[in-house]
């Protein structure tokens, strides 16, 4: 068995949709797709795949990611419909960015895996709500730590990655070892459940796919992680020190203070919604800042799904970080937005043209709305309105190409603030983390080869992979683990092979492949012939020994060596006269016993067995 792992990311010209996945191929035909997005955002491309005819792969997503992802997809479709309503369809098949030219680049073998033998063309055009519903219905949702069994041979588990609500790392385990897929992970999150590194510890293979570009130019200072630091508990603490979360909070605070400055100057602030967790935290922080500076500026959230999203995020303690769980236990809402909405500090509206919004509208204000690409949704209208105001502020995340994003709105005098939030581990933490996780083999992205050197690592081996490329990995373990029922084990008849110092015994039962395990259970009808006799023999019989053994059993015969056959030069024949006429023909690889009486025959076999090794 070999694992074939392909890893690639689809990216679109505008990064509207991207879908990251791995295909893992085992036992030649068993195929799996794992949804492994860094966040619920990562699944936006899924309907394109699932609506294909013949799509048959299994999809696993965490429950929270599936729900938030569904909302995101619905919103995207809603916005696209609106877009087409206003501007018309540029082409009958939908806008340029909807063309999946990149999927064409997939290795043909993998296209077959994903789409079945036909490999029919991926349809163009934007999926509709029905496609999203259909897509979600094909998905199997999991909770953190829940075991999903694929076809009896694999166990699939999701563990929190800490990056966003529902974002996870995956562990796939089978009888021949386990693979951990690590996507962007965050040690200390202010919203999502912390990175569960313990679950990943001790995996045979780690597919490292934390491709966050953050700090990729940073120098790697390894002095603080010396090799002699073997206490991983200590090492872990140094890795997950709260610098990061403090840093993240500082970034949030900075955005908030910029926003406050803007509104104080009479401008408005536009914050496109990107990652759910960041959005929720920012909402809380801005409200606190406003409170402190005793400003009474309305905060609007304009999104068709915001109402549901806000309600949902406040009911999922199982997916959130420790501090937020504590809030549940002490009777507080998980996120502050519940209270803020009630206090009418935050206003939620489904669309920019909602009558209530129009009645309520006040400027300056702070608006959260989709879409972060600035090509869809309420952001377009608001940008048009504020782009000329030098007091207004636009907050973008770093992964958006700001130049490109604001291009249609030029000339722009509005301030643009670009911030980068952690979307994965910092590079200098990669190596120590992998050391802690103690895998046997690590698959590392080729593009990072120059940034992270593993030359001094001895505890595991490293291979590099590139996008859209398939690598074959030899079996992780030589043999699969087999569990033998005690009933069978108690009936073992051991045989000692002296020259090899081996103990061997014959084994018989029924093999069950269940829940990723191989089990050998007793046969249903143990009746049959209790085969205590060996059936496998080896060794070369010697005429003298054979005669001696035979005579012990009261069988007498004589050896004849004069075989005329050329092929059996080292063979001989024993002619038995007593007790009955019979013949034993011994050649290099076979002994033929010819006896009319079956009792005599079996006695001769016994004698043979005594001089041959067998089991």
């Amino acid at each position, binding site marked *: 068995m070999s694992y074939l792992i392909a890893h690639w990311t689809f990216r679109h010209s505008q990064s509207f949709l991207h879908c990251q996945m791995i295909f893992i191929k085992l036992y030649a035909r068993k195929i799996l797709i794992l949804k492994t997005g860094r966040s619920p955002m990562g699944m936006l491309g899924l309907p394109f795949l699932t609506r294909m005819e013949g799509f048959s792969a299994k999809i696993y997503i965490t429950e929270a990611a599936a729900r938030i992802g569904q909302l995101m997809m619905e919103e995207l479709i809603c916005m696209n419909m609106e877009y087409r309503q206003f501007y018309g369809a540029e082409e009958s098949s939908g806008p340029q960015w909807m063309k999946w030219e990149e999927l064409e680049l997939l290795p043909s073998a993998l296209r077959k895996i994903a789409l079945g033998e036909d490999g029919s063309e991926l349809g163009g055009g934007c999926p509709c709500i029905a496609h999203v519903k259909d897509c979600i219905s094909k998905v199997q949702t999991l909770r953190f730590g829940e075991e999903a069994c694929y076809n009896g041979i694999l166990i699939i588990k999701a563990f929190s990655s800490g990056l966003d609500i529902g974002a996870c790392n995956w562990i796939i385990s089978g009888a021949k070892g386990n693979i951990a897929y690590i996507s962007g992970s965050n040690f200390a999150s202010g919203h999502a459940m912390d990175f569960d590194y313990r679950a990943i510890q001790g995996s045979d293979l780690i597919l490292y796919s934390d491709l966050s570009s953050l700090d990729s130019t940073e120098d790697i200072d390894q002095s603080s992680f010396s090799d002699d630091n073997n206490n991983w508990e200590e090492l872990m603490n140094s890795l997950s020190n709260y610098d990061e979360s403090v840093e993240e909070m500082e970034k949030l605070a900075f955005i908030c203070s910029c926003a406050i400055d803007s509104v104080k100057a009479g401008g408005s602030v536009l914050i496109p919604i990107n990652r759910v967790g960041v959005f929720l935290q920012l909402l809380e922080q801005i409200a606190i800042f406003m409170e402190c500076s005793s400003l009474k500026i309305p905060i609007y959230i304009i999104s068709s799904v915001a109402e549901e999203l806000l309600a949902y995020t406040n009911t999922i303690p199982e997916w959130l970080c420790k501090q937020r769980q504590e809030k549940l236990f002490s009777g507080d809402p*998980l996120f502050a937005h519940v209270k803020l909405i009630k206090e009418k500090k935050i206003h939620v509206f489904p669309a920019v043209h909602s009558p209530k919004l129009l009645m309520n509208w006040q400027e300056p204000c702070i608006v959260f709305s989709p879409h972060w690409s600035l090509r869809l949704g309420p952001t377009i209208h608001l940008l048009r309105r504020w782009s000329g105001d030098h007091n207004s502020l636009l907050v973008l995340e770093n992964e958006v190409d700001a130049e490109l994003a604001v291009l249609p709105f030029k000339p722009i005098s509005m301030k643009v603030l670009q911030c980068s939030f952690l979307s994965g581990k910092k590079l200098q933490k990669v190596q120590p983390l992998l050391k802690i996780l103690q895998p046997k083999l690590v698959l590392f992205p080729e593009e990072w080869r120059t940034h992270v050197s593993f030359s001094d690592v001895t505890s595991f081996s490293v291979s590099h992979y590139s996008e859209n490329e398939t690598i074959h990995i030899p079996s992780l373990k030589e043999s699969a683990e087999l569990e033998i029922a005690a009933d069978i084990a108690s009936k073992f008849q051991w045989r000692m092979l002296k020259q090899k110092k081996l103990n061997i015994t014959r084994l018989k039962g029924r093999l069950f492949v269940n829940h990723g395990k191989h089990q050998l259970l007793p046969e249903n009808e143990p009746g049959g012939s209790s085969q205590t006799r060996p059936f496998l023999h080896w060794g070369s019989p010697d005429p003298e020994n054979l005669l001696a053994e035979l005579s012990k059993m009261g069988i007498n015969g004589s050896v004849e060596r004069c075989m005329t056959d050329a092929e059996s030069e080292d063979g001989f024949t024993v002619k038995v006269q007593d007790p009955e006429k019979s013949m034993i023909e011994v050649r290099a690889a076979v002994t033929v016993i*010819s006896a009319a009486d079956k009792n005599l025959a079996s006695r001769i076999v016994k004698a043979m067995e005594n001089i041959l090794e067998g089991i």
Partner: protein
Amino acid sequence: MAIDCLVLGAGQEVGKSCVVVTINGKRIMFDCGMHMAYNDHRQYPDFSRISKSCDFNNAIDCIVITHFHLDHIGALPYFTEICGYNGPIYMTYPTRALAPIMLEDYRKVLVDRRGEVEQFTSDHIAECMKKVIAVDLKQTVQVDKDLQIRAYYAGHVLGAAMFYAKVGDSAMVYTGDYNMTPDRHLGAARIDRLQLDLLITDFDFHGICLVFQFTFCKCYNSEIEYRNSLFIDYAAAVSDTVDYIIVSYLISLPCPEMEALAFGLRSTYATTVRDSKYAREREFLKAAASSVLHTAVASILSFVVIIVVHKCVAGGGKVLIPAFALGRAQELCILLDDYWERMNLRVPIYFSAVHNFDRSLIDAPGPCVLFATPGMLTGGFSLEVFKHWAPSEMNLITLPGYCLAGTIGNKLMSGNPTIELEGTKIDVRCQIHQLAFSPHTDGKGIMDLVKFLSPQHVILVHGEKPKMATLKERIQSELGIKCCDPANNESVCIPSTHYVKAGASDAFIRSCLNPNFQFLKSGSEEKSVSGSKCTEGTLPLWIKDERVAEGILVLEKSEKAKVVHQDELLLMLGEKRHEVQFAYCCPVNVDELEKFTTTSLTPTARMLRDPNKSSLIRLLVAKLSRKLSEGNIQDFGEHLQVESFHLSVCLKDTCPYRITNGLEDKPRTAFFCCTWSAADDKLARKIISAMENRDLVET
């Protein structure tokens, strides 16, 4: 290997659930409850039996709590704070959120109302809760390297879970209270089909809801209100009862039975502002009901109650419904309300927790329906109303399906006409109706669960002995599963599964997966039944594909045991296989053969004068297939084959395998040279006997 099971509470009784199980050296305490009927040392499990030295941290690896009822969690703060257990405690998120409220409620009942000495303080509860690790349903939690636990949805009350525990190859499930039939409030228990050595199941699940006794305590309002603002925009509704927390929690947390609706509900209820909290709750439950198939039985039972209630109010009487376990009262309330609407009834229904049911209304003229807590009439408002309404024959009191011994409810159920209360005698003349539905599982539910899980052993706890004995009998006789019901402080030891671990080579696994078709003529049985009726063409062919795993286990010094295919063994040893075969050149009288087959093969039989190989083989196949019930005879023209038995016509004058002498000269004798491997010796000898017509002699 064995599982040791020490029952510290709820052994042959109801109350203070506590079972300590030792699996492969790991010790888990399931539930840590208190007995509500006692005031002395009997109210807590006898923890000293766990560890003589009271070193509980070393004696117990973890505590698992199934749900927040006091008979399952009541002793926890005592055990952790007074007895000093510091290890991990596992419970579900809802239980973690609700447990401190329940415990605090109980503590206040003891101290504020009964004026007793508190066994633990509020600080104790808070400290105890810090040791809790909340788990999600279905989440596999690795307590330590060897011990694994997992919670499964149990229905019953919010957050209730069954727990699966596994150490090495031994596994068990402890159910706590559960229900196997869904109601409008919560779904039925859900669990995977697991390989279990032991199932410990609660028999008679009667959550004791004394905590609700003081839900009217005004001093609570602020706190509950505060807690009620939990999770979602629910604080606007000032709630008087803990039930409301439950309801709001229910909205906020997934309940598997409502998976489809859950998301919609969450958003609806999180954002819609309604005037009446009652209306809101009602709507929620209605929505829930639409997703949950109500079982027919439960509907009928509920309907009976409604009819009885209707009859009473029609006669101008007042109906008191002491509200019992969470959810049930609401359920009945919805049913009644629907009925009222349909029948256009105007008689008021009060839900004392919702409407500020004024005390003056108690003695107001005219019929009404009142839901009031607590359920077993142990005190509080329901008892107060009871005192007023019980003497009138017109009135009706419905009682929950179960009332603890010693409570007024229990006395009423046993038909006591006069009840003594605080020195005054109450003459009970009102009608009494016992509600048949209870949130606890019934005998059928347990049987269903036991059948579904098919464990090696069942232990029944949390039930009265005589009732459990019947079920024990049924489990043993109907399901053939060993079952016992130990008393408190008794220990049960049951054997557990153990697997021998070995590596298995690919070749071995592959060989196990190879199809192993066997074509069986239904001959043997059929022949005896319908004799000559069966002609060759009509015999049905049975195809069996029972794959047999056969290999060799190799144990090499200082290396892991390995299972290999036999071919691999030879490679390992560097040896070549030496086959032991049999050969026999069998003489057959052609006349005999001919005689045997003339009926079917008359024209061709004549050809035997010039013996032709394939026709001889054909004749032989025809003969053998009649005589042999086993084996699949394959005719290859030049030779025939049955398993490893190979036969061809021998035309040699002197064949080395022609052992028997003197037959060569006999006329019309054909020789068939046979070879076979030792494995098929039995079969081969049978075939030869058949060929030589010795079969009769042999048998």
